[in-house]
């Protein structure tokens, strides 16, 4: 059920990328897709205990393992989130440049203005 909702979120973002006319809406849809993917990765790593994988003093590995979630997708999603911010900054820079060049954020207008 949770997987279906996350896939639906990704599909909403994909629909936004393909069908919207405004560049900023396309950027927003790409950010939605990225959120959905990060969520899917962390949800895959959820385990029985539901606790964070940090060892408190004096605990054995077996005790930690019985209550912890998977640390590996968390590490990957951590870097993915920060990279996603960098890519969003780049996309906004592109959008600002497009606004400077064509005076509008509308893709159909830009296509018309290019001749």
């Amino acid at each position: 059920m949770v997987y279906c909702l996350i896939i639906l979120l990704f599909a909403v973002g994909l629909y936004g990328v393909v069908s919207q006319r405004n560049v900023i809406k396309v950027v927003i849809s790409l950010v939605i897709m990225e959120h959905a993917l990060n969520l899917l990765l962390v949800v895959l790593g959820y385990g029985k205990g539901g606790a964070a994988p940090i060892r408190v003093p004096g605990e054995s590995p077996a005790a930690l393992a019985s209550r912890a979630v998977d640390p590996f997708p968390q590490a990957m999603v951590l870097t993915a989130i920060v990279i996603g911010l960098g890519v969003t900054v780049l996309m906004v820079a592109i959008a600002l440049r497009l606004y400077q060049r064509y005076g509008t954020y509308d893709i159909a207008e830009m296509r018309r203005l290019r001749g």
Partner: protein
Amino acid sequence: MTDFLTVLLIFMLVSAVAAIHMRSLLSAVIALGALGFASALSFLALGAPDVAIPQVLVDVVTLVILIRATLGRDVKTTSGLRDTSGIALSVALLILFGIFAIQAARHLPPLGHAGMHAEANKPVSLPPGADFDPAAPSHFYIEKGPEVTGSANTVTAVLLDFRGYDTLGEATVLFTALVGAVVLLRKRSRSVPSLPSGAGAPSSPGEGGAAS
């Protein structure tokens, strides 16, 4: 917990649909901020505080940057969807994507399945319907992580010791993306593109960087 997650996901879906369909750009950006915050809450519910902290901050910075791009411009509202062939194409694409996604999701283990255990080579009992154990390397990380690396936070140990190469790649990608953004927004000669064909502006090296 699953109920909490389901409620949050429904909230995220509603705000995603709102963000895409709202006419005013500022409201769409604010709906995106709500989406990011709900996403951080669900990371907390999933036992990932290491991920929830940067998610909140990245959401805030994304909000600031998007508002900077949309506030104070002439275009504050959008004019809707593309032409009809675009809509038909996008619906067809979504149906295709949905078919493949449902097929793939059938192979995933159910939420919160067998969990972690601390012996790296012990076979894991998989629930029926799952073909693989998605946590396979992590049994080793949990068992050996704090002793071998000396760091109690397993996620940091994975990021910086077991998977340090990926972190180096991440630093490189971040550097490249931000250098691209800086190059795109440099000072140019102030030529106004007066011709409708857009032939007036000088060609800028930023257009090559936009492809990266």
